């Protein structure tokens, strides 16, 4: 969090593998209008980790380099994803290429089950994770909100698990807080909610559950005012994290007065 209150340790840091981050908001770099909008939104989000995709160089086009240049110059941590892969084999191959590009072994593993829901294929994801961990990658797998699968991903050595809140790009928010709560009870590695967030309160809710971070792209890039939404998400994640650390009041069906009862004038109830 930017400014910690006196009640908190001076810094509330997120550790993933060998990495340490202050920001708990991870953002994608796709779907923006142009490079200027992308870079402005990334800065407004306060994110330290940004995802990128691995794609064939388009030999007909040119001058695509600007994004990567910006990301490296601003010292963002790059998180290459395997978006678009539907088999463990394709995902592993993509991760190997990603590592070769900049020599970093941090990857977002994403093996999709079908193009309509973009839900993960958890069987293929587990297979790919096993191989990648053996090859020394720091693996952050996109997964369903099934606690058993999350535990298996931890067991094979993933550095975090990234359950979905709702389908990628759906903006439905946390559909099943119960499963996320169980995952948080079940695994020791950080839990980063990946996909499905639509607005700032969705991000806050994920953090209030105790999740360690939130990853999003469409919710910011697809908003009417992406920079403003990036700022909203930054604050939403921080607000949710602080509320989690602060320890909220319990829910009660009935009321409790917030002004003193003594010294009221003439009330029959005082």
């Amino acid at each position, binding site marked *: 969090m930017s400014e910690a209150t006196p009640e908190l340790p001076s810094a509330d840091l997120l550790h993933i593998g060998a990495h340490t981050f202050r920001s708990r908001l991870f953002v994608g*770099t796709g779907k923006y209008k142009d490079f200027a909008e992308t870079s402005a939104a990334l800065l407004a989000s306060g994110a330290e980790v940004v995802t990128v995709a691995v*794609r064939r160089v388009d030999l007909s086009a040119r001058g695509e380099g600007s994004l990567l240049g910006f990301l490296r110059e601003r010292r963002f941590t790059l998180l290459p994803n395997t978006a678009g892969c539907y088999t463990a084999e394709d995902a592993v191959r993509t991760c190997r290429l990603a590592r070769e590009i900049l020599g970093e072994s941090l990857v977002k593993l994403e093996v999709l089950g079908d193009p309509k829901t973009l839900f993960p294929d958890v069987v293929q994801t587990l297979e790919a994770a096993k191989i990648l961990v053996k090859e020394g990658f720091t693996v952050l797998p996109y997964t369903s909100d099934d606690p058993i699968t999350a535990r298996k991903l931890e067991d094979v050595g993933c550095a975090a698990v990234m359950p979905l809140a709702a389908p990628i790009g759906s903006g439905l928010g946390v559909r099943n807080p119960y499963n996320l709560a169980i995952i948080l009870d079940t695994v020791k590695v950080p839990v980063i909610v990946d996909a499905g967030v639509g607005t700032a309160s969705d991000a806050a809710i994920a953090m209030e559950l105790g999740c360690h971070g939130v990853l999003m792209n469409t919710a910011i890039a697809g908003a009417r005012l992406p920079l403003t939404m990036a700022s909203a998400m930054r604050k939403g994640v921080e607000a949710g994290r602080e509320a989690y650390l602060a320890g909220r009041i319990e829910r009660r069906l009935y009321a409790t007065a917030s002004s003193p009862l003594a010294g009221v004038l003439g009330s029959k109830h005082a």
Partner: protein
Amino acid sequence: MRIQVNGEPREVAEETSIRALIEALGLGAVPVAVERNHDLVPRALHEATALRDGDQLEVVHFVGGG
């Protein structure tokens, strides 16, 4: 000789190295990774690796994505 780069046919001189091809593609300054015939070729070997007729190359880089 004739090779394929990212699915497109291309003529290159004998003994062209992967490094040389990358330069020729104007990608000398761009961080890329290369597969030859589905096998990754580590950057350290780009210089030393000579292309052969019929080679299939994939040249990839990072683009915006979520």
